[in-house]
Structures are given as C-alpha cells and as structure tokens.
C-alpha cells in the first residue's frame, strides 16, 4: 500500500497516509435493535396488561367522567372509565370501562356494578368520601357464572355484596308491609342483617323478600324459625283489647324484620341458603302454632251480624279454633229472603284427639252436630262491639244435621243468649201494645161522670137535709150533748172503746199504704197485670 502511495505523482509534497489493519464492524445497528427491544417490550407489556373492557348501562352519568372516574372494589382502584356514550334510544348511558388484568375471571353474569355517591337514608349514611373524591363505580365481583362483558348497572347500591359472609333466605308474604331494601333484620333485637331485595310473584299473589343474615347469625335460622314483620309500631285493637309493640326505633322509622325460634326446646334442622320461610305479619301471629289443615264451613245467622268481620275469632268453649273468613249478604231468589252467610275456617289440628278414630275431620264434625254442636253469635268485647262465632255442644238443642252439597258444608245455628233476651223483651212489648188502653181510658171517663152526678145528688140531698132536718137536729144535738156528757163519763180516759177505735184507724192506714205499694209496682211492672207478680 505504501508503495502505491509513493507512486502517486500528483502530490509529492503531501505526506502519505499510514495504513493499518482495522475492521469496519459497525455496532451502530445495536441502537435500532435496542429500540426495537424496548418498544417491543413496552408494547408487550401494554398488551399483556391490557385489562378486559366492559360496558355498563346506567340510568344517568351523574358524577361520572370519562378517563377520570375509577372502578373500585373495596375502595381499591381496579379499573377506569374510558368513555361514556348515550344509548341509541337515549334511555340510558353506556359506560365503557377498562379493568385491571385478571379481572376477566370475575366478570360473570352475577357480577354487579353500581355508582357510589353520597347517600343519606333513614337507616344509614354511605359514600361520604365521594363528596371530595367524586363518584366512582363499585364492582361486586363474582367468580361463579357465565362470563360476560356487558352489564346493567344497579341504580342503588346493593345491600349485600358477595364478599360479606352470610346467607340469603327468602321470605314469602302476601304484602310488603312498609319494608324497604336495606331494612334491618333483628334477632332478639340484635341487628344481624338486611333486606336485600323484594319482588312480586309473577301471579301477583305473593311477595318474596330476600333477606341477608350475616355470619355467624345465619346459623340461627333453622327449619322451625319464624320471621315476622317488626315494622313501625304494631298497634292492634281486636277482640282481646289494645296492644302496642315495636322492635326498635329504626324499625319504627324504616321497617324491619325479626326472627326467632318459637319453641326453645325444639332445636330445628339446619337449612340451605335460599330456603323459603313465611313472613308473618306480627310477632303474635308468628308465635301461634302453624296449622296447615283448614276446613271451611258455612253458617247462616238470621239476625244482624254487626261486629262480625273477616278475621273474627271462632271459639269452642272459649278456645280459639279458627276464624271468620267471609261475611256477606245473600238473597234467596225463591222466597226473597235475605240471609247472612258467614264462612268460617276451622283448624282441626288445634283439637287434640285422645283416641283417634278412623274418621276424617268432616265426619267427626258431623257426629258432633248430631250430638248438638251448634254455632251461635257471641259478644267478645263490649267496648268494641266485636262479635265471635261460638261453637258448643248443646245436647238439648233441637235435632239438626250438617248440610252438605253447597260450596261449604253448613253448620246449624242457634240463637245467641242475647238474641233470646231481645226476643222475650220484644214479646213483652207486643203484649203491652195489645192492652186496650183507649177503652180503659173511656171507661174511666164514664166512671168519673157518674161520680159527678152522684156528688150532685148528694149536694141536693144535703140542702134538703139542712132545711128539714137541721132544726130537729139541733134539738137532737142538744140532747145528744147531754147524752155525750153521759157517754163521756161512760167512755172516760181508760174506757175500752177509744182504744178499739184507734186500732181500727191504724188498720185503715195500713190498707191505704198497701194500695200505694201496689200502685207503684203496677206502674213499674205493668206486665204483672197479665203475668202476675214475679
């Protein structure tokens, strides 16, 4: 090489370059390589950390903001809202949120989303921190169920989240009774759970209330547990008087449910979650033994049944064995007679049968009727005027039998004791009415007239007597005076005659008094004229 340079004639003064061995291996390509590696790693991380996207429907986007509002579970951020769009029909908003990687396992049909906003209800205050930090979307992740990525958000926070230990039971009732979601559940007045949800049976007949009971109290729910509505103040005015009962101030305000075992001796059997129980209307109702067999009978009362309502007790010798179901009016088209059919419900299980016969309950009733079982109305509470249907066996009643063939078998009735009194009283009145008072008056008037005539005659007689008899009478008197003088002597102080006379006068006085008593009695008991003194 050096020889080559020296042979270069063009620039002899210029020094020649020295040549040495060297390699032209370029490391510069490491730079794009490193860039590719870094960018690739970032892309890989971005893709691998890409969490699942979900869409959630909400009624409104109040408090929600795209790329700001977070999705949180137990106040820990697990995602973020990416966009909020309106639904096509403008009825709701659709929120798209990206969750952290790994969340896809918890996105199932049972997973729920809701917006946490500050909320103040009668029972509690929640979400106060969102006043400062803004609303966020809460998630209740559930692993079990079909995976999905579209959800319908709850408008109100759920009472029970899956992470809370406890069990849910169903309560069945005919009415809701001022219970709302979130209403407390009490066990011996300890707050052990909440009402999670309620829904109406498709037939509209029943309401199923879901209640959540926290661990460990959920174990207290056994097969024999009774739930009852402890809402508000339970004021009952019925056949037995006035009663007031309430579980707590909170339940007075927002309602509540209590449960307990009616029989402490009966341990009961463990139950599964979602077991259905009956929700009783009151503690008293819950504490009554439950009878499953109910038999309906019809009774006809001939008189007014004012005070007898649906729910009035049916008693047998003072023991409640059923209730009145229906009271109505019925027109018999054959003879236009209006009757009052009363449907009663009897729980035959309330009657303990000492020696069980192989006869069904209807058959037993039939025999009892043959023995004189009769229904009659009885007063149960004079204050409220309530009536009850009393069943009893009257062996001396006129023979009658149970009437079959109608919708319900009909029991024979007999008048109530009160009805008997009323009947006899009206009989007395009728008799008084039948008395010929007018005629008596007329007769009395005639008698008085005769009396007056008689008096007039007496007066004329007296005047004649004055003229004709007085002069000789004066003479006679004079003589009589002398006679009396002698008589005076005769009678004297200690003579027997005056004493006799006084006695006679006293007798007359007694007689007059008895007449007055008689008159008084007659005045009070005019019927004694007819019926004699009682």
């Amino acid at each position, binding site marked *: 090489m050096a020889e080559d340079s020296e042979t*270069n004639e063009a620039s002899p003064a*210029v*020094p020649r370059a*020295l040549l040495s061995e060297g390699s032209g291996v370029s490391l510069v390509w490491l730079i*794009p390589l490193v*860039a590719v590696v*870094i960018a690739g790693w970032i892309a890989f991380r971005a893709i691998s950390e890409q969490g699942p996207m979900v869409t959630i429907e909400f009624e409104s986007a109040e408090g929600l903001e795209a790329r700001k509002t977070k999705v949180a579970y137990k106040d820990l951020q697990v995602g973020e809202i990416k966009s909020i769009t309106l639904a096509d029909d403008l009825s709701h908003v659709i929120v798209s949120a990206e969750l952290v990687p790994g969340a896809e396992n918890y996105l199932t049909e049972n997973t729920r989303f809701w917006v946490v906003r500050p909320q103040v209800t009668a029972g509690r205050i929640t979400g106060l921190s969102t006043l400062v*930090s803004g609303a966020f979307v809460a998630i209740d992740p559930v692993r079990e169920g079909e995976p999905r990525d579209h959800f319908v958000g709850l408008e109100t926070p759920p009472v029970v989240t899956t992470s809370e230990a406890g069990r849910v039971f169903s309560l069945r009732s005919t009415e809701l009774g001022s219970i709302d979601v979130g209403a407390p559940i009490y066990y011996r007045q300890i707050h052990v759970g909440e009402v999670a949800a309620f829904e109406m049976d498709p037939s509209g007949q029943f309401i199923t209330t879901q209640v959540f009971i926290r661990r460990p109290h959920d174990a207290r729910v056994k097969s024999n547990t009774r739930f009852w509505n402890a809402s508000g103040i339970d004021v009952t005015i019925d056949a037995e008087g006035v009663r007031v009962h309430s579980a707590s101030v909170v339940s007075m305000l927002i309602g509540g449910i209590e449960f307990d075992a009616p029989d402490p001796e009966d341990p009961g059997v463990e139950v599964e979650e979602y077991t259905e129980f009956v929700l009783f209307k009151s503690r008293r109702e819950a504490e009554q033994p439950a009878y499953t067999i109910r038999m309906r009978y019809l009774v006809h009362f001939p008189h007014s049944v004012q005070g007898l309502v649906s729910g009035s007790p049916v008693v047998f010798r003072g023991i409640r064995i059923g209730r009145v179901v229906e009271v109505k009016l019925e027109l018999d088209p054959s003879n236009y007679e209006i009757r009052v059919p009363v449907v009663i419900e009897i729980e035959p299980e309330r009657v303990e049968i000492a020696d069980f016969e192989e006869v069904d309950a209807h058959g037993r009733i039939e025999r009892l009727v043959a023995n004189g079982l009769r229904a009659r109305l009885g007063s149960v509470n004079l204050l409220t005027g309530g009536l009850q249907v009393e069943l009893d066996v009257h062996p001396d009643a006129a023979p009658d039998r149970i009437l079959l063939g109608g919708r319900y078998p009909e029991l024979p009735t007999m008048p109530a004791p009160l009805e008997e009194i009323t009947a006899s009283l009206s009989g007395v009145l009728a008799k008084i009415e039948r008395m010929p008072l007018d005629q008596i008056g007329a007769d009395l008037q005639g008698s008085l007239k005769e009396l007056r005539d008689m008096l007039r005659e007496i007066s004329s007689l007296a005047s004649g007597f004055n003229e004709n008899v007085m002069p000789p009478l004066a003479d006679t008197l004079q003589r009589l005076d002398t006679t009396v003088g002698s008589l005076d002597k005769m009678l004297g102080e200690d003579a027997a005659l005056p004493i006799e006379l006084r006695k006679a006068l006293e007798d007359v006085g007694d007689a007059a008094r008895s007449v007055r008593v008689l008159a008084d009695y007659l005045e009070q008991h005019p019927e004694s004229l007819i019926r004699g003194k009682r």
Partner: protein
Amino acid sequence: MSAVGSARSQGMVGCHACRLLVGLSSGASAGAVCPRCRAPLHSRKVNSIRRCWALLFGAAILYIPANVLPIMTTKYLGNSEPDTIMSGVLFLLEDEWPLALVVFVASIVVPLLKLVVLGYLLYSVQSGSSWRALDRTRLYRIAEAIGRWSMVDIYVVTILVALVRLDQLASVDAEIGVVFFGAVVVLTILAAQSFDPRLIWDRMEESNG
C-alpha cells in the same frame, strides 16, 4: 460542477485531529492513520449512511411509545390525570391555540420532519439522485439546526416536576413517555450528525465524471 474537484477526487484527505493534509487513494480508506498524529483518517464519515439509517430506525421506533405513552401525570386535589403529548396539545388548543401550535410544532412536527427529511436524504444519496443537490444540502442544515428545539418538551416536564410539589394539593410526575421522547430527540440529533452531506455532492461528481 466544480473545476477544482473535491479533496477526495484529488486523492487527498484532511486529518480530523491535526488537520494535516494527507494523500490517500480513494480505493484504500479503511485503516488509514495520520502519519503525524496517528489519528484515523477518513475521507468521508465512516459508515455514514449505515449509521444514519440505524439511528433513524431507532428514533422512528421510539417515536411511537414517545407519543402513545403519557409523558407526565398531573395530580390535582386527588384527581390524577396522565397526559400524552397529543392530549396536552389538545388541552391547550381549547383556549391557547398559539401555544398549542408551538408545542405541536416543537414536539410532534419537528421530530417527525427530521425523520422524514433524513430518510429522504439517505434514500436520495443511496439512489444516486442528482436532483436539487443545493436544496437538499440546505434541508439537511435546517434539519440539523431545529432538531435540538424538540428538547423544549423535556425541559417543560422537568421544570414542572421540580416546581409543582404541593403534596396532596397538586403535583406533577414525569412518566416513562418522556424518556422515549428524549431518546427520539437525541437519536435524531445523532443521526443528523452522522449523515455526511458531502455524499450528496460525491454522487454528483461520480455521475458527472
């Protein structure tokens, strides 16, 4: 084009270190050293095109994460909001459009322009184009001059991070995107430096000669 011709066409090369003019046949440039100071002699920048391409590719690749990833996070009263370069521009566009324009040009247009310009120059040199060589040289000078201004973004972020430290009230944190953005700027500067504009004219001579 040139009556004299380049040093290279005369079989000459200047030493980069001691500026000695050394005679070197164009065929043997690799491994030559200065006879006076023993510094390596290069008639043209060594591996200029290859090196420039490599740096350009690196910059182009990093340009993607630099723009996609957030460059900083603004925390204000508990709300944290990450910002990419583009989201910052869009934010400024709402009421400060001149400022938005400045940021847009400095942070997005300039790096992109440099990538495109250098790519075009490399392509034109490699394909031996002789089209408007003077303008292409000017283009190279512009690209080299404006490249450093892209660092404005980096400075803004570092100053904000240092200044806005109000704990819970407000704070600014730098994010990974700013690193990539800085790498893009540095790589494009290096790429521009490794490009040898004399190559533009070499082709001209060769095609003329």
